[in-house]
Structures are given as C-alpha cells and as structure tokens.
C-alpha cells in the first residue's frame, strides 16, 4: 500500500456504506422508541398498578372498529413497501399509485381515530380530564396520530413533488425509502399500542 498519494479511494467514500439519510432516520427512530416507550409505560403503570383510573376501558373501547383500523394501517405498510420497490426500479407510475394507496389507508386510519376520539368524548364521556386513564390514553394515541398525520403530509409532499420537473426517480429513491422507514416504524408502534393498550383489556 503506497501511502503518500493514494488516489484509489474516492473523496466521498462512506465507511459503512449506509446512506447518511437512512442512517439518521434509523437513529431518529431509535430515539422515537424512547418517546413511545415512555408514553406506553406511563399508561401501563397507571392502568395496572393504581386502581383509581376513573373509568372501565372495556365499556369504552370498540374493539371491532380498532381492529379494522389497525388492519388498514398494516396494509398501508404493504403499499409503502411496494412504492419503495417501484421507485427503486424507476417505475414512477406504480410508485405514485402505491403512494396514493398509503395515503388513503393512512387517512382512513386517522378518520377511524378521529371517530373513536369523538365517540369516546360524546358517548362515553372519556375526556383528557377523566382520571389518569383519559390523560394517558389520549396523549399516547394522540402522539401516535400526530406521527401518522406527519407521515401523510410527508408522503403527499412526495406525491406532488413527483409531478414536478425536478423529480428524478433514481436520485430520490433513497429519500422515499427514508420516508418509508418512518412509515413502517409508526405502524410497528401501533401494533405495540394495539396490543398493550387495547387487547390487554380483554385478557
């Protein structure tokens, strides 16, 4: 190995070979795990250790609706995976259709959550001030809803951008993949919330 001048290495080499945008997203998601971890822990601690939560969750939850909306969110991840695959192959038309699928399913999930929140408030009387259950439930699921909403805004931005002259499937594939990582993560978090917050009440 000659040392004084070694031009075999490109100036923009990356030691790990992992794109920096993807790496920073992975790290952000690691950090986000702690956010949701703290929120879910707060909920479970209040729910399971202390008696005085003010309400009976089984009387409030509509498990059929939540199961359906959970399924819809999971299916949106399938569309997301297809959209990422399409843009890597340079198939912009397929990318757009799949992205529209993700956006619609994401919006359906959000609509389900809005309906759920509205129903809880108007029919079951569960508000943010209903014992600790209302507080932990709304802050946790609300934070998740905000994550979904931000993901939808992000993906709509990509959909619109894909019609502009600057859009380049080859170059932007990694950016879309990064958005995809976020979207899948938000789905996985929902699986945890659905299990640890909803299903656990029926055990």
């Amino acid at each position, binding site marked *: 190995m000659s040392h004084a001048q*070694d031009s075999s290495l490109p100036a923009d080499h*990356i030691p790990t070979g992992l794109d920096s945008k993807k790496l920073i997203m992975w790290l952000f998601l690691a950090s*986000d795990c702690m956010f949701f971890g703290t929120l879910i822990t707060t909920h479970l601690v209040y729910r399971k250790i202390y008696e005085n939560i003010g309400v009976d969750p089984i009387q409030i939850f509509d498990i059929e609706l939540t199961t359906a909306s959970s399924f819809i969110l999971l299916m949106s991840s399938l569309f997301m995976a297809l959209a990422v695959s399409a843009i890597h192959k340079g198939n912009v038309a397929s990318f757009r259709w799949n992205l529209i699928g993700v956006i619609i399913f994401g919006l359906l999930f959000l609509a389900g959550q809005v309906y759920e929140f509205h129903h809880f408030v108007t029919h079951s009387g569960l508000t943010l001030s209903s014992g600790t259950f209302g*507080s932990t439930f709304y802050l946790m699921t609300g934070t998740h809803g905000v994550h979904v909403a931000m993901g939808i805004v992000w993906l709509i931005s990509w959909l619109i951008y894909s019609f*502009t*002259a600057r859009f380049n499937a080859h170059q932007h594939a990694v950016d879309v993949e990064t958005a995809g990582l976020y979207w899948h993560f938000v789905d996985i978090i929902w699986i945890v919330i659905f299990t640890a917050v909803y299903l656990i009440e029926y055990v």
Partner: protein
Amino acid sequence: MSLTTTHPSTTETVAHPGTDDAPARSHLGLKRPDHSTGWKDWLTTVDHKKIGIMYAIFALGFLIMGGIEALVIRAQLAVSENNLVSAETYNQLFTMHGTTMVFLAVMPLSSAFFNFLVPLQIGARDVAFPRLNAFSLWTFVAGAVVINLSWLFQAANALGWFTPVDGFTDIVPSAGWFGYAPLTGDQYSGIGTDFWIYGLQVLGIASIAASLNFIVTIINFRAPGMKMMRLPVFVWMTLITSILVIFAFPPITVALAELMFDRTFGANFFRVEQGGQPILWQHLFWVFGHPEVYILILPAMGIISEILPVFSRKPLFGYSLIIFSGAVIGFLGFAVWSHHMFTTGLGKVATAAFSLLTMAIAVPTGVKIFNWIGTLWGGKIKFSVPMVLSLGFIWMFMMGGFSGIMHSAAPADAQQQDSYFVVAHFHYVLIGGSILSLLAGIYFWLPKATGKMWVGKLGYWVSGVVIVGLNLTFFPMHFLGMIGMPRRTHTYLEGTGWQPMNLVCTIGAFVLAIGIFMFLWDLVRTIKKGKPAGNDPWGGRTLEWTTSSPPASYNFAETPIVHSRDALWAHKHGNAALRIGSVKADPHGIHMPSQSWFPLFASTGFLVLGLSMALKQAGVPYCGYIAIGGLCITVVGIYLWALEGPGGYHVKPEEAK
C-alpha cells in the same frame, strides 16, 4: 409554499462541474446567501467551525448569567437572617442558576467543542448535515431566549405593566431545576413553569437534532483509514454523549409534555386528587437526569484524554480501555437513576439494586482516572496552562467522585439527601470536572480556532484562582451539609452555627468569579493581541493540527488518509509507513455546501411558539393563534429548506489562500 416550481428542468445539481461559483439562485428562485460577509454570513452559515464558535459565545454569555445568579445566592447566604432578596426571588435564582448552567452553559459549551473539533479530528469537510447543524444552534438559542425572557416579564410585572390572570406573581421559573411535581402544577406555580416547560422542550429538539447529526458524521464521514479504534478519544466521547442524548431526552420531553397537558389542557398526570402520581415525574425526570450527568462529564473526559498525552509526550495509556470505560459509563448511566430517589421509599430490592449499580459505575470512572495517571507516568511533562487545568480536573473530579460514591450507599444518602453535602458533591463534579476541562479545552484549542497564541502567563493565574475559588466555595459545604444545612434554604437562623462557613463559601464564590473574569479578560486580550500561533503550537497528535490556524473554510485541502492512531504524531515521529497520505484533490475544487436562511427561519418559529404558549397561560389574548402561527413558521421554514435544494459551490484551495 411553492411546491410546483416552474424552473426549466435541469438535472438535479449538487454542483456545476467546471464552474467555481455558486449557483446563485436556489430552486425557489431566491438568491443564496453564499459568499456573504459580516452578520449575514454568521446568521446563514453552515460551517461547523463558525457554528461551534457561536455555540461557545452563547454558552459563555449564559455562564456569566448563571454565575451572576450564583453570586446573588451566595450574597444572600453570606450572613444569617439576611434579607438581600426575597424568598420568592431566591427560589427563582436557584432554579434559573441550575437550569442555565446545565442546559445553557455546560451543554452548549460541550457542543461548541463537538462542532469545532469533530470534523477536523476525523478528517472530514463538515458534519453530515450542515443545515441541520445550523438549525440545532438557532433552536438552542430560541429555547434559551424563551426561558430567559421570563426575567423581562418579571420586571414588567414589578413595574405594573403585566399581570398574569392566574394570580401568581412568580413569573421566572421557581420550582427548582428538576421541577418536582406537584410543585409545578397549576395550583402551586405560575407561568414561570410554563416558560421553563416550553424552553426546555425547544432545547430538547436542538440537542436531539445536533446529536443525530454527530452520530452520522462520526460513523459515516471518517477519512479513509480512520477506523473506529483510531478515532481520537474526544470523538469517541462525542459519539457516546450523542447516543446518550438521543435516548435520554425523549423521557424528559414526554414528562414535560405531560406536565404541559396538566397545566394547559386539564389532564391528570400529576394531579394527586385525580389519581396522578408525583413519583412518576421523579422517575421520568431522573431517567433523563442521570444520563444528563454523563452528557455533561463525558465530553470533559474526552478533552482531558486529548490534552494529557500532548503535554506528557506519550500516547494515551490504555486507549481501548478508556473508550470501553466511557461506553460502560454511558450504558450504566441509564441504570442508576433511582439513586436520586432513595428517600422516596422504593422498596428494599429496588434500593439495593440501584445502590449496587451506582457503586458499579464508579469502576469505569476509576479506570479512566488510573489511565490518565498512567499517561502521566514517566512522561516528559510540560506544565502549560491546558495541562495545569487538566491536572486540576483529575484532582477536583476525583473529589466529586468520592462524595458521589458516598451517595451510592442508600442509608448514608438518606442523611445527605437535600443537604448542602449534595450541593458540594455536584459542584465539584460540574465545576471541578466539566468547567475545568472546558477551560482547559479553550486554552488548548483557541490557538487553532483563532490562529492567535495566548499572551503572557495570565492563564496560570486563571487556573490557580479558579481552583482555589472552587475549593473555598464548595469544600465547606460538605461540612455544612453534615451539620444539617438544607439545600435551597432562603436564609437560616443565627444560632445554627452555619454562619462562619457560609461566609467562607461566599468569599470563595467571589474568588471563583474573579477567576472566570480573569479568564474572559485573557480570552479577549489574546483574540485582540495574540501572535500568530502556527499550525501546531503544542506539538499535537491529531488531525486538526495539520490544518492551518484558523482552519480554512474547507478544512483540508486534500482529504487525509490515516494509517495509525495519533495520526499526526506518527506522521512526525513514526516510521515512514505511518505518514498521513492524501486523497488526490478533485480538479474542480472542493465542494462546499450553500449557506441558507431557512434553518434560522425555522428556529424562529419555536421562539414564537414557546413564548406565546407561556403567555397564553398568563391570559394574554390571541396567544393560542400566535402559537399556531409559530408552528406554521417552523413548518414553512422546513419546506423551504427542503425545496431550495442542496446547492453548493466549489473552492480551489490555492485560490482561497
């Protein structure tokens, strides 16, 4: 928001090959602020070195503010039954002193070193995301301003111009730097707590964004041959600190959000009468708060590990072990939080476990101390100012460490809890540890940052006066704590016997302040009158000393190729095979990222958001809408930032000289 720009389609350009000038206009059609000068250059810069210098300036400014708060506290306690400030003001002073020193002085001063040094030490052009780095800086400033604006509203209240509707006259945060529930609830404290909540939330965003950036930079932007186990120890400690930040800040952010929901939207997280548990706040706070201690000290350990080998003319003793110990400290840092809560009645098992883990964390810390001593052993020691401060660090930090181990024994801790003994302990660790090493770092790297060498011998006096002042202030506090003086007490009775030692503490605090003032004088004098430092004034060991002083905007004319640890030392004194190589320069020149207004623009939104949310609690009309407006500013700023395109231009090193 113009998502559909109507520019003619060009290939998405990172650069125009063959041209050296910036594409003057961004994708939005706006003029890029490249090549600007003066204040405009500083506001739009994405250069890690300038960002680092700005972090340092803001941090030193807040260090002075926090210091003045401390001096007023000490003046109040100088004699018994004193009434220099009211009890209410006293609470505000110690709260703001703690918050300012932890979040606005020591953390950003560490950030200044991360910013300035990491890319230079790993042989990189800049950090991974230069605009995100600028965003972190300005967001930090926004958060700091939100918290400190409370002083202005307090003054307005005193003048009768401003009265919050909640009936509290307490407008500066006053619930202590760890804001225990339910004292922070809306029944017990006024909008000071809201300023504190929103300011800290914004600071959290800044810290997490900066840390994500540094982890990516260290992992992905190392020069060829700069393997992980060849990284300078300071870079390793930056990496570990950044990892701590991204995992430790989410719990405090959630805790603050819960408190915000309690205060603003009527939630019940910490409302005892509705089933809320104040102990939850303590857990969430200290799950953050203990790693935070290591966030403050690990960068300091990194700085010391860089300085000692240079002035001992020896490699660092046990390089791998020092890094491993740093990683173990970081890891265990998440497993010891409940030692702040021994007196809350956790139960025997939990108390024993946290006690044991706290004792365990002293082991890697001790390993580091022995390694530093091993580095000194048999070295050709040169007592320069950074070295004197570093030796002071080892001694003073050990003192703080010893009293720390005393706290790990739960029964002993129950006696020391909330006494001045604890105050003595953490000031030895934070001043004797963090501040001494940060001063050492400034003495060490200022010639690199400014190109000016220190004038005269004032630095030795600074070291001496600071170390004497520190001991005079905090050593008697151990005894004060032992004879029962509680922490955060506004005043004390005459017959308690606390009077003489308190007076000594107060005199010590002013000696310490004189030391810091002398340091600032030395700093200003050197920047004005210092002689040129040259590239390598100390006989350095790492890559930053291969660059010019101050380094050129592009850092390295040719990317270095590293073949060993302590690359520059090996280059100067090792065999020929270990010489630093270089990647052949691109004939177009070095690619530079474009400057941008949008990081600053997006951060401004946080300032508006934080301030208006706090004032909303005071009943100021329309603040809810202004808060939404602030959020919109941030969102629009981020979109404009994304849509302006990365830009960039080329600089030819020979021309730039």
